[in-house]
C-alpha cells in the first residue's frame, strides 16, 4: 500500500515538470515556425545582410559579417526546430532555462538578420549601448535586492534615483564629478532613511511610503529644474559634464568583445565590481546571513539577539545609497546635466530585473542586460524594416517579467517577510 502511495506521489510530482517540458518544446517549435513563416517567406533568395562588428570606443573590431539572409534564417529555424523536437522527446532537464535563453538569442539574431536584410546593422555598437543602458537598471535592482532581502519592499527606487541624479549634477557642477557622485549617494541614503523611518518605525504600508517618495521627489526635482536651473544666471549649477570613458588595458584590446565590455566610464566598472561584492557579501559573510535572516523570519533573528530594527534601517539606507548612485549615472555618467524625469521609470524596471533575477545580484545583472539590450534594440529599429512601432518591442521584456511572475518559466519567490513590518510581541 505504501508503495502505491509512493508511486502516485511520484507521478504527481512529475506532472508539472512534464507539463513544462511540453510547453517549452512547443514554444521552441513555434519559434521555428514563426521564423519560417514570417521571416523566411518575406525574404528574397539573393538578399544579403551585413552585421557590422564595430562596437566603437576603441579600435578592436572584427571584420563585418556578410551573409545570405535566407540561408541564415533557414539554418536558425532548423536549429530551433531540432531543439524543440529534442525537448519534446527527451527534454533538456536542468539545462532547459539555458536552452530557452539560447533560443531567445537565436530568435533575436534572426529578427536582426531579417530586419537588416538588404542592408546593414551595427551589432557591435548595439551591444555596447546595451551595456551602458543596463547600468541604472542593474544598480536599481541591487538597491531593490538589498531592501527586499532585509524585508522592506522598496518601490521608491525611482524617486531615490531622480534625487541622486539632480543632487549629483548640482554638486558635480560646483565641486567636480567625484564630489557629485558622493553627494548623490548621500542624497539617496537620506531618501532611503525617510523610507526606512516610515516603513520600519511608523509601520506605514510600504507601497504607500514608496509611492509618496516617488511622487514627492519627481515633483520636487521638476520644480527645482523649472524654477531655478533653467534660469540663465543659475544654469552653471547644472553643467556637471560626465565621466570620460576609460579603456582597460589589454582587456579592451580583445577584438569585438573588448570594446563592448571594457571601454566605458567608471559606472560600468562599478557595476561589474558590485555584482561580485554584493554576491559575496550576501551569501558568504556574517553580515549577509543576518540580513537575509531578518528578511526571512525577523522573529527568529530577534530571538537570537540580532537587532531587527537596526539591521533594517542600515540596509534600507544602504539600498537608498545604491539607488542614489544609480541615479547619478543619468547626469554624471551619460548626459552631463540634469533633465526633468530623466530616470524615466528605470527604477521600476530595476525592480522587474530584481524579480527576473530571483533576488540575486548575478541574476539581476543578466536581467538588466536583457532589458538594456531591448532598449538599445528599440532605438535601432528605425533603420530596420520592422512593421511594428518600437514602443511595442520595448514591452517585450516586461511581458517576459509578467510571464515569469506567473511561474511559467520557473519559481521566483522573494524573501518571506518582505513588506511586513516587524513588531515585537505584546500581550
Amino acid at each position: 500500500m505504501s508503495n502505491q502511495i509512493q508511486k502516485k506521489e511520484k507521478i504527481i510530482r512529475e506532472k508539472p515538470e512534464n507539463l513544462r517540458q511540453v510547453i517549452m518544446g512547443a514554444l521552441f517549435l513555434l519559434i521555428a515556425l514563426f521564423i519560417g513563416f514570417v521571416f523566411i517567406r518575406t525574404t528574397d533568395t539573393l538578399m544579403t545582410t551585413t552585421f557590422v562588428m564595430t562596437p566603437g570606443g576603441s579600435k578592436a573590431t572584427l571584420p563585418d559579417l556578410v551573409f545570405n539572409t535566407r540561408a541564415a534564417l533557414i539554418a536558425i529555424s532548423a536549429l530551433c526546430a531540432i531543439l524543440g523536437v529534442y525537448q519534446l522527446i527527451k527534454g533538456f532537464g536542468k539545462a532547459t532555462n539555458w536552452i530557452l535563453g539560447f533560443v531567445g538569442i537565436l530568435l533575436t539574431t534572426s529578427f536582426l538578420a531579417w530586419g537588416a536584410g538588404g542592408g546593414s546593422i551595427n551589432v557591435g555598437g548595439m551591444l555596447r549601448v546595451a551595456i551602458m543602458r543596463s547600468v541604472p537598471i542593474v544598480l536599481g535592482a541591487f538597491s531593490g535586492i538589498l531592501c527586499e532581502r532585509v524585508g522592506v519592499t522598496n518601490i521608491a527606487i525611482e524617486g531615490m534615483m531622480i534625487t541622486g541624479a539632480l543632487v549629483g549634477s548640482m554638486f558635480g557642477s560646483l565641486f567636480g564629478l567625484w564630489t557629485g557622485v558622493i553627494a548623490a549617494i548621500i542624497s539617496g541614503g537620506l531618501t532611503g532613511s525617510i523610507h526606512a523611518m516610515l516603513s520600519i518605525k511608523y509601520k506605514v504600508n510600504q507601497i504607500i511610503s514608496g509611492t509618496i517618495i516617488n511622487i514627492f521627489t519627481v515633483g520636487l526635482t521638476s520644480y527645482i529644474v523649472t524654477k531655478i536651473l533653467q534660469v540663465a544666471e543659475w544654469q552653471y549649477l547644472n553643467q556637471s559634464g560626465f565621466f570620460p570613458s576609460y579603456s582597460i588595458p589589454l582587456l579592451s584590446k580583445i577584438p569585438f568583445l573588448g570594446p563592448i565590455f571594457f571601454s566605458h566610464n567608471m559606472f560600468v566598472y562599478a557595476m561589474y565590481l558590485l555584482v561580485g561584492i554584493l554576491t559575496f557579501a550576501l551569501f558568504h559573510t556574517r553580515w549577509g546571513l543576518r540580513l537575509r535572516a531578518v528578511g526571512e523570519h525577523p522573529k527568529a533573528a530577534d530571538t537570537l539577539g540580532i537587532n531587527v530594527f537596526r539591521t533594517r534601517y542600515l540596509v534600507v539606507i544602504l539600498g537608498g545609497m545604491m539607488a542614489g548612485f544609480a541615479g547619478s549615472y543619468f547626469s554624471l555618467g551619460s548626459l552631463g546635466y540634469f533633465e526633468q524625469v530623466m530616470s524615466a521609470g528605470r527604477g521600476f524596471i530595476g525592480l522587474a530585473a530584481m524579480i527576473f533575477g530571483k533576488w540575486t545580484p548575478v541574476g539581476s545583472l543578466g536581467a538588466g542586460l536583457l532589458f538594456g539590450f531591448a532598449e538599445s534594440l528599440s532605438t535601432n529599429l528605425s533603420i530596420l524594416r520592422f512593421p511594428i512601432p518600437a514602443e511595442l518591442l520595448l514591452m517585450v521584456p516586461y511581458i517576459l517579467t509578467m510571464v515569469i511572475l506567473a511561474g511559467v518559466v520557473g519559481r521566483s519567490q522573494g524573501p518571506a517577510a518582505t513588506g511586513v513590518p516587524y513588531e515585537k510581541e505584546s500581550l
Partner: protein
Amino acid sequence: MAPILELRGITKRFPGVLANDHIDLKLNQGEILALLGENGAGKTTLMNILYGLYAPDEGEIIIKGKPVQVKSPTDAIRAGIGMVHQHFMLIPVFSVTENVMLGEEYTRAGGVLDTMRAANKVKEISNQFKLNIDPYALIEDLPVGLQQRVEIIKLLFRNAEILIMDEPSAVLTPQEVEELFKIMHNLIAQGKSIIFITHKLREVMECADRILVIRSGKVVGEAVPSSANPKKLAAMMVGRPVELNVQKETAKPGKPVLNVENLTILAKNKKVEVDDISFEVRAGEILGVAGVQGNGQTELVRCLTGLMKAESGKISILGKETTHSDPREITELGVAHIPEDRQKDGLVLQSPIQDNLVLNTYYQKPFAKGIVLQKDAIIKNAKNLVRAFDIRTTGPGVPVSGLSGGNQQKVIVAREFSRPIKLLIASQPTRGLDVGSIEYIHRRLIEKRDAGCAILLVSTELDEVMQLADRIAVMYNGKILTIVDADLVTKEELGLLMAGITTKISAKKRKARKVREIVT
C-alpha cells in the same frame, strides 16, 4: 547543592491582568521540571521573562547563586538559558548549519562565514546527543520532529545549560513525542537542566522529575510524578474537580447520514490532498478522524461543508447528493460545522456575540422579516443561548474578539447546536482550550450523539479521538489507512498508523491484547 536557576518573587502586570504573581521557582541541575498550567495561567509569560523578552515588574533571577539581569535574549543566551519556542524560530530556506549558527557565526577574518567549521560542530553535537541531523539539509525539507531537534541543537551550540521547552509536543506525532522524551533524558544525563511547559497531564507524568502547577499567575502546588495523582493535578490546574475521562455509553448507530464515496481533492497546486477515500457516518455515532496535522483532514472538512470543490467522487448527506452544493444548502440540510480555525472561519471577530449567534439563520424567521433584521428576536435568542451554554460575558452586545478562546468556542457550539441538526462536522473542537472547557465541549458532543446526531470528529489529539469516537479512521497522506472500532485498537497502533506504518495485527489478536491490558 544550590539550584542552577532560581526565580524569586517574579511579578508581571499587564494592563488589567496580573500575569505572574510573586512566582518562586527552583531548578536543580540535571532535572526536568514541568510547568503545568492551563492556557493563560502565566507559564509562557514567566518563561518570556526568564528569556529576556519581557521585563519583570518585581522579583529577581538567580543563576548558580548569582543574581543576573536578563534584559534581552542575548543576555539570556549569555547566561546559559535557551528556549525552544512553540512555533519554531527556523528559517525554512536556510540550511541547518546556517540556522544554528545565526547570531553566533563562525567566521574567518573580515566576517567571512566559516560554514564548514560550524557544520562540523553541528555534526558533533548531533552525534553527542544522538539527534541524527544532517548539517547541510534545508529546514523546509525536514519533518517537524527533526526541525525541533535543530532548535535543540541551536541551544546546545550556544552552550546552553538551561533549556526551556514551550509546549514541545504540540506539533508532534505520538512516536515523535516518545523520541523527544528520550532526547530530553539524554540531555539531562549529560548535565543539562530542562524546564518543560505543558498543559498535558499525561506527558508530565511520563517525563518530568518534578511538577510545578501554576494557576492564574500563581504557583498553586508542587508534586513528584511517582506520588502524584492526575485527577488531583487537574483539579489544581483548573481550580475545581475535573472529570478527565469521558463518560459515555455504547453507541446505538442508526441509518447512515453522511456517505462519502471515492472522494479525491486537489490543492491549488494540483497536489493530491485527499486521495480516493470512502466512508460513512451513521446517526448516533461518532466517527473520529485521527492523523497528524496536514494529512488531508482540513481539505476533507472544507469539502464536506461546501467550502472547497472535490476533484472526483461523491458526497451525500441524508441520501441527497451534496458534492457540488454550496455551504448554505448544506447547512439547511441540518449540517453543523465547528471549524478548525474558529477565529478565521467560525466567527466575525469584530461583531457582537448576538450577531455571531445567528450567522447561519439570520435570514430566516424569526430573525428576519423580508429584508429587515428583527433585533429584538436576535437579542432574545442571544440571551437564551448565553445562559444555556454558559458563555462568560458581560452581555450579548460584546464583540466576540473580547472573549477568551474557550468562550469563543462556546459561541460557535451554541450557534451550531441551537437548531435541529442531523450531522455535526467538528474539526479540532478543543484546540487550544483549557481542561475545563475541553470537558464541557466533550460532554456536549456526547449529548448530541446520544440524541441521534451523526458526528464526524476530526482531531489531531489522539486522546480526544480515542475517548470520544466510536469508530476511528486514520488519515495519512490523504488516504484513510483503516477504519477501526475504538474499543479494539491501542494507542500505539494508532500512533504507528498516524506515522504511515500499517501493521498487520488481526482483529482477533487485538481483542486478546485488549483483554490482557484491562486485566493488568
